[in-house]
């Protein structure tokens, strides 16, 4: 059992599998292993750690964007005209 991942999953509402798929678990464990719950959530949701975005991936994998079901701006190309479609309901 990975205590950091379990705690992160409980705090963020994203499964351990979803968190691991970001590729950021090891980096975030190193940064936020002993941080407050609010700081851990902020890191996962926005990619910001104490006023700094530690890597482009941290920005791109921000869970706030995933909660909405869109790519972080400047990181994903959904394709010409994709913006015209009704948004899909984000799966909870």
């Amino acid at each position, binding site marked *: 059992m990975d205590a950091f991942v379990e705690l992160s999953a409980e705090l963020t509402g994203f499964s351990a599998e979803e968190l691991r798929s970001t590729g950021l678990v090891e980096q975030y464990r190193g940064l936020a292993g002993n941080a407050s719950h609010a700081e851990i959530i902020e890191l996962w949701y*926005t990619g910001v750690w104490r006023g700094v975005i530690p890597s482009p991936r941290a920005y791109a994998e921000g869970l706030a964007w995933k909660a909405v079901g869109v790519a972080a701006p400047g990181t994903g190309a959904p394709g010409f005209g994709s913006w015209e479609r009704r948004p899909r309901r984000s799966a909870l």
Partner: protein
Amino acid sequence: MKAVVVGAGFAGSLIAKVLGDNGFRVLVLEAGAQPDHDEALLRFQTALVKTPLAPYRTTTAAPSSDYLINTGPFDYASPYLRINGGTGTAWTGITPRMHPEDFRTADLGHGRNWPISYDELEPFYRAAEWEIGVAADADEQRQHLPVADGYSYPMHALPRTYLDHVIASVVDGATIDGQELLITGTPQARNGIPVRGYRPDGQLCAGYASCVPICPEQAKYTPHRTQKRWSHNVELRTRCVVNRVHADEFGRVTKVSYQRYEDDTTGTHTRHEEEADVVVLAAHAIENAKLLLMSGLANSSDQVGRNLMDHPALLTWALMPEPIGPFRGPGSTTAIDAFRSGPQRCTRAPFRIEIGNWGWGWSAGSPGSDTAEFVAAGLRGNALRQAVANRVGRQFTLQFEIEQEADPTNRVTLGPGRDALGNPRPSVHYGLSTYVKDGLLDAKRVSDRIFELLRAEDHTSYKPDDERYFEHNGEPLRYWGAGHGGGTHVMGVSPRDSVVDQWQRCWDHPNLYAVGCGSMPSLGTSNPSLTMAALALRTAGHLVSRRVMSAGSELAESAGSRPPP
């Protein structure tokens, strides 16, 4: 014929191209460095606040707008970028034409008239739209503007956002203050489906949703595209800061002085001069004014640096009843144009209403701000995830671009401080007139009505500790800078009260041109880059025809313009 162009942004790149294509030898001196696209993308992604300038490498020797000194009652809030490509590297890529009324704003009671009409500029709008690559539908634009018969934009209008469709389904045909509302497509300088005979330069817009400040796909026009089409007659030198234009005793410009630097982190530089038969200043409205003031040129009217305008933008933000999928595709693909023109503009500044597709990103820092709010309220786990999805998924913003009239007291002067090269920092004295404030207030009232029509939940709030907060008639208001600086070397019909003539030629100097938004006597309510481009092409054509006309006397003319040995 040797031309020196100062500034490799929108206007400078376009003029250099036309001159180079027509046999001029052209040297373009750019103050900033060459941007690196991959580096800029990386810097964008890791920038905490994704401001328009955040991705771009700036240099100590040629600072961008953050070196302005504000001295007026309001802060001039619009950034500009000194880099190869200029602010056109970071621009949003929205290209509406000005309204015909906008060319005679003085007749309508505020500001100044243009020396040319919409009809005179219209062919150059078409030329600029083809040079830049604009996606729009001519019939749709004709609903609020005259567009030449038989004309096609080079690309079909971009698809609207889902948000646009939802809003149009409610507001189209409704009226506010007797104005019928209609959601209209906004012309875009990003690649869509071409019409026959047009080959887009670059990739199709893929919906990255970061047009300003950087399109990862490079589907948005930037001046670098025009630079790729320069002939061999055009030479670009970056990291060259022109700090003086010299004229002889007859007013003819003879040469420019510039400071060249290699190191981006210091002010270390070498000094150079370049002779020219014609000099074109295309360094941005504020930088052009600064350079004219530093050179002591073109100012017999005392108008250099005056009439500084921008679009003070009002943002209002709300939640739609259902998810609309923000942060997908371009920042704004439609607008409401009903308040751009008409008799009301005699009493309050007119405005254009952009439908903002990037949630509350600009207005309120979403989604980071929403997350922080919910976390502070104790939400965790699924409740947090659901709250963010429910909030952000329904966000939209209305972006009102308010006209600001030319006012000689809004002014750029040379400030007391010096930059790293020893050149004066620009000082800006900026304010908002009652006319502008009345426009902002009316925009807020119209916003309230639109939100009612949409049954949208209004979350707009302006607080005294917000930047650029003020009150007008007891109502809280706030403005944002749109990045649309203009007016500082204003164009007119007389050398007594304007700096340049209709060709953007300085009245005081027959071979000195000051081009760009600084020449515009009014900004109307449209993003000004397209109008700047149309004016640049018109000036370039004038320069070419003038050279042809004076071909016989050219040698004698340029010999006479040289300083005595």
